[in-house]
């Protein structure tokens, strides 16, 4: 028996010997620099979404009649006073003036008035995520009651930065929750169609094709118009998520069905069957793990679609409604010509949508490439 051990191919790198599939995937993913940056960016957005109240300098609902359409202010870090220059972040105060003839308002910078900002400053007590009592925010005016507008103020003088952060929570989470629901439906229906085949496959495939052939926006509009207008904002949030995922599951179901069809005839699945594995074990122990990477990749590509869908619905006024705050709701404020002319900073949520969707798409691309065992490993 001693002469039966194979020679070792010199091409086999030694260190992958005990690396699992996930470790190999991560290694491949790391080479996709854009995807890696996107991963960090998306992670950052979700951290903001999770701890939204902590990152908001102000309560997003608090209005200020004096600061209607207040322009964005720049933070100055060095404070020059008679005592010398010190590190003390602040913004310069403004005074409102009105043109006596045209009645147009304008804010003049008042260099003497400084609004100091403290990091982890104390503010009015609030509850993080609705139940953790806290009283500090990441940045807050040193003197309570003062206000500053890093992203500007809206038509009621509410702080756009705080509102955008609040919108991040809803918009980013609607993607996650919606995709989670689509994923459940998609894997269940797609998996059954792919594994069982036969009439179940025919019926569900036709159903998927039917749903995919319908124009999505009118369907969403029609469905969301059936939600009562006076419903609780949280319920509305869930209703909208359900509506979005009722369409979103189809794409995932197709992916899952295709993978099941391919894997069902793989030799190792047949081998498991011959080993005496029952169908449930074959599906969960053998097919599902091989599917996981593909599912993760399709999910990360489905999230941006979800976010865009929510944004467009809310923008059209049939998605979430105030007092809920999402990027779409915020962009609804920027619908008229006046905001373009007078307060272009109302578009900042749009910039967030753009970057979030781009980052999620890059992330999905990177994951898909990393999960694909046939992709060439270049260097």
């Amino acid at each position: 028996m001693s002469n039966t051990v194979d020679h070792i191919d010199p091409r086999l790198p030694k260190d992958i010997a005990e690396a699992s599939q996930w470790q190999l995937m991560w290694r491949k993913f790391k080479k996709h620099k854009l995807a890696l940056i996107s991963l960090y960016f998306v992670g950052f957005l979700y951290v903001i979404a999770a701890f939204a109240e902590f990152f908001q300098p102000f309560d997003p609902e608090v209005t200020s009649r004096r600061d209607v359409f207040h322009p964005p202010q720049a933070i100055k870090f060095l404070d020059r006073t008679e005592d010398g220059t010190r590190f003390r972040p602040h913004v310069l105060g403004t005074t409102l003036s009105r043109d006596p003839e045209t009645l147009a308002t304008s804010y003049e910078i008042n260099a003497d008035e400084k609004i100091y900002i403290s990091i982890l400053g104390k503010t009015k007590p609030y509850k993080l995520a609705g139940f953790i009592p806290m009283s500090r925010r990441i940045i807050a005016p040193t003197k309570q009651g003062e206000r500053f507008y890093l992203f500007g103020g809206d038509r009621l003088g509410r702080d756009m930065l705080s509102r955008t952060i609040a919108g991040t929570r809803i918009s980013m989470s609607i993607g996650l929750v919606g995709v989670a629901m689509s994923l459940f439906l998609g894997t269940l229906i797609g998996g059954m169609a792919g594994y069982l085949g036969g009439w179940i496959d025919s019926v569900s495939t036709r159903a998927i094709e039917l749903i995919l052939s319908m124009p999505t926006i009118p369907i969403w509009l029609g469905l969301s118009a059936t939600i009562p207008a006076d419903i609780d904002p949280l319920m509305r949030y869930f209703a909208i998520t359900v509506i979005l995922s009722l369409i979103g599951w189809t794409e995932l179901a197709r992916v899952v069905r295709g993978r099941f069809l391919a894997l069902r005839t793989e030799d190792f699945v047949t081998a498991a069957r011959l080993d005496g594995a029952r169908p449930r074990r074959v599906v969960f122990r053998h097919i599902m793990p091989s599917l996981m990477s593909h599912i993760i990749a399709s999910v990360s590509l489905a999230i941006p679609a979800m976010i865009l869908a929510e944004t467009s619905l809310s923008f059209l006024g049939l998605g979430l409604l105030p007092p809920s705050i999402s990027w779409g709701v915020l962009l609804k404020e920027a619908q008229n010509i006046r905001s373009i002319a007078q307060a272009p900073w109302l578009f900042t949520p749009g910039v967030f949508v753009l970057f979030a969707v781009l980052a999620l798409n890059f992330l999905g691309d990177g994951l898909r490439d990393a999960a694909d065992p046939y992709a060439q490993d270049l260097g």
Partner: protein
Amino acid sequence: MTQQQASANRPILEVKNLVTAFDTRHGTFTAVDDVSLELVPGETLCLVGESGSGKSVLSRSILQLVDRPGRIVSGEILLHEAHPDPKQDTTTELDLAKLEPRSGIIRNIRGRDIGMIFQEPMSSLSPVHTIGSQISESLKLHEGLNKKQARERVIEMLRRVEIPNPERAIDQYPFEFSGGMRQRAMIAMALVCNPKVLIADEPTTALDVTIQAEILDLLEELKTQNNMAILFITHDMGVVAEIADKVAVMRYGKLVENGNVKDVFANPQHDYTKSLLQAAHQTQLPSTERLAMREERPLGDPILEAKSLRKEFYGKTGLLGMKKTTLVAVDDANFTLREGESLGIVGESGSGKTTLARCIQRVLSVNSGELHYTDRSGASTEITQLDDKQLQPTWRDMRTVFQDPFASLNPRMTVSQIIGECLLLNGMHSKADRRARILELLDLVGLPSSAMERFPHAFSGGQRQRISIARAIAPNPRIVIADEATSALDVSIRIQIMDLLLDLQKQLNLSYIFISHDVGLVRFFCDRVLVMYKGQIVESGDSEQVCTKPNHEYTQALLSAVPIADPTQRGQQKRVRYQQ
């Protein structure tokens, strides 16, 4: 005459100290390491080597077709009589290694001075263009012919590669051609500009042996007609013996042997060449180990009996799948397998041998017929009508080793999980027991115990096949079905796996059903053999008798097409073609 003689001996292409390397994450990997070769007009140089030896990279380096991150590091590739300018007929000497992979000059060389044929005739032709338009493309590019002239030349070329009815074939699409016809079309494409050098990278590996024989004949004929130099890449020593004038052997990127074919076969210098030749010769005769084993322990009683097995597949064609078609994959198969016996099933692709194996294993259902399995206690069961649950005891006794060592092991499980799966599902719940059994099995198949916690991708093809065998013998079976279990492996590893299987048979008194397209392997390994053709068993009997004195005409045709690994016997075998 003398002038022609002189030019015939002068090489047309010289590779000098070529080094091609790939920059990888783990450092630079040298795929071709200091290789020097010469191609002479009118001669075939066979480049032999196993997978990963760098033979394909070498051939691609010549045409500057190496994909990134590969690059030619140093060395020269001298092409004499090159046509760098398509408009002029002047020839010069050119160093191809110095050219840019995307330069116009190398594009002029490709197809015009050096033609290339690839392994897979399925994927190297464009499916959406007609055969004619693909072949005439290089004529238009290199010789600036107009449509009508090009068409004439293409028809002429198709006639030369013996494609029947070339006037019609020129307007057909690749999918209308069989594998052998596609490879002929591919050859026509490579040769239409009358190149002086032809590089053929495993052109017959994907083809059936009878078609391989025809393609080899064709290449030989074209070589003499055109006075062309052929670089023929292969791993099959039989093919080498059949067509080579000179042989070069590569291993791990280095050239280990280079010489005249008869000298190399008669008197190999390098140990590696010796082992390759030994493996090739060994599989042309019955295994002495097997014969000794049968002396010691004669075959037992029949344990598996098939009576007129039939398997049909149904397809749908026509509008909305209204028309049903039936394909009879296995028709009226009868055989008996005895205890301790190795039964071979041999046939070409599409002959139904794999379907038959899957029917025996009952992965597939059977349309009609009976399959009787006699277990250890002597009780006989008819298994064609059982469902998965009722088949459990039979599946424990009858196991499969699959063809593809990469697809048959779950990539997400460690080796101990893969082998342990069957033990666990058959009631061995104690972890320590399972571990002990897995260690025993790994030792039995010649793998170190450290393999247990590794994933399949950490192993080479041969080692994976050992894992697959360990999984098959885990529940102590009586029958192992090996479906082309060695065909994905290199020659030297193949013989190791065959020896392992024989060794296990000796120790565990296994019966094998061994499916292969390779007649030599079947003769080496099996006591009896079934020859399948188009779903039917056309001949069955003692393997020696079938392989030396075949009765059926198809078997005769099949055997006459098998290349013999001995260049001195070249051309002595009379080729029989089987026409139904």
